[in-house]
């Protein structure tokens, strides 16, 4: 049985009423035997969750989105596997805030595979583990295959919806991040700054008040809270 056939089998078996794309994280946890897995969409203007499953994954994906740092972005940037075998020892330099929070939560090692087909790249699959060490050759190969399957599911699904639409799994992630874009606009108007700076201010405020980025955005959008002018 080829690797692809085996993993497609797992994907089908693990599909619990969700879409195939929604089951990718569950299948990744089963196939690689990791604690958790998360799938994130990364584009220039928008980053959003696609699915997560198992321990640490929801927290890890939220933290990466909130802090704007972590292995997903690096896998996307480098177009290759990003692996950290001991987060407490070597993650700190790359992603200080993310590494600290994940280490406190019990994550020891992690790996991110880019979602890409040829030159088109659009996200990352991250695997979270509470054990030390590198992934085995088999695990790395499985990880690449799962990332590849996820990439093809996104492209195939997206090719079928209209030009102005997005597939349901991405739509759901966008809706979750909507308050962040709204709050970004509010901070832009309030402080007279651009979108990137406004998002950075939001991230800082979220980190400073121990909130996720979405919670901070909700606080501003729904609670009418304003950021301090001097930052």
């Amino acid at each position, binding site marked *: 049985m080829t690797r692809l056939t085996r993993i497609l089998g797992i994907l089908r078996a693990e599909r619990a009423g969700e879409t195939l794309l929604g089951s990718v994280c569950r299948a990744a946890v089963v196939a690689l035997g990791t604690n958790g897995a998360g799938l994130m969409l990364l*584009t220039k203007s*928008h980053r959003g969750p696609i699915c997560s499953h198992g321990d640490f994954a929801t927290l890890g994906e939220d933290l990466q989105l909130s802090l704007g740092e972590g292995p997903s972005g690096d896998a996307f940037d480098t177009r290759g596997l990003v692996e950290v075998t001991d987060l407490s020892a070597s993650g700190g330099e790359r992603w200080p805030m993310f590494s600290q929070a994940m280490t406190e939560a019990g994550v020891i090692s992690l790996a991110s595979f880019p979602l890409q087909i040829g030159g088109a790249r659009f996200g990352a699959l991250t695997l979270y583990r509470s054990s030390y060490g590198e992934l085995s050759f088999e695990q790395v190969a499985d990880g690449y295959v799962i990332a590849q399957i996820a990439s093809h599911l996104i492209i195939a699904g997206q090719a079928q919806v209209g030009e102005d639409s*997005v597939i349901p799994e*991405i739509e759901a992630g966008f809706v979750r991040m909507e308050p962040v874009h*709204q709050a970004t*606009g*509010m901070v832009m*108007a309030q402080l007279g700054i651009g979108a990137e700076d406004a998002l950075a201010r939001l991230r800082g405020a979220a980190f400073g008040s121990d909130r996720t980025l979405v919670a901070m955005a909700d606080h501003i959008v729904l609670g009418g809270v304003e950021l301090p002018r001097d930052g």
Partner: protein
Amino acid sequence: MTSRERHVTGTLVQLADTLVAGYDVAEMFYYLVESCTDVLSIDHAGLMLVDADGILHVVAATSEVTHLIELLQIQNQEGPCLDAFRSGLVVESGPLADSEVRARWPILSEAAHDAGFGAITAMPMRLRDQVLGALNLFRVETAPLTVDDLAVAQAFANIATISILQARATHDARTVIDQLQRALDTRVVIEQAKGFIAQHANISLDESFARIRRYARNNNLRLSNVARDIVANVLDPELLIEA
């Protein structure tokens, strides 16, 4: 490793490298036909590929005369290359001066023979049931290609076929992702504009969105363009509030 084996391996590696993103497919076509003449005991090579409408085109040839013979086959819809493309199988022409060959492809065999060729081998560019075209090997000699040469030519053709399919898939994926990016960009900017106007005018997000929509409708503008102008600070928000 003999020097020939080294040459074959080097060519295979080079062709496989083109699977990696960011290469020029057209360049690979020329590399393929030139490698065939370097490595195999043949004199010239040509490559024809089918387009999305099912029409064959000559995409590379090692000489002008080979190019013309390829074109002749397409124009007259006859020849070993056409047969290899249609059948998905390797076609050995046999000696071009033979009467059997003359009867099978009258125009092609005469033209190729006049150009000094003795025989042609046509190799389909095929992956499973998908035939993309044919790789054509021209020889001055009339003897058929050796088994070894045939195997090497097949390996070259296979890798080149995968490269072409990969390039097409990449192109398709890029188009889809570009559309996804645009769809998301538009929605991001609309959400930002909603927040911007809500904050500026101290109104709810719903009310803000209603103002933006109304402004777009009254001025016959696209909602996304109005939103873009708002967040780019080139549209006075007061204009929306007054409206």
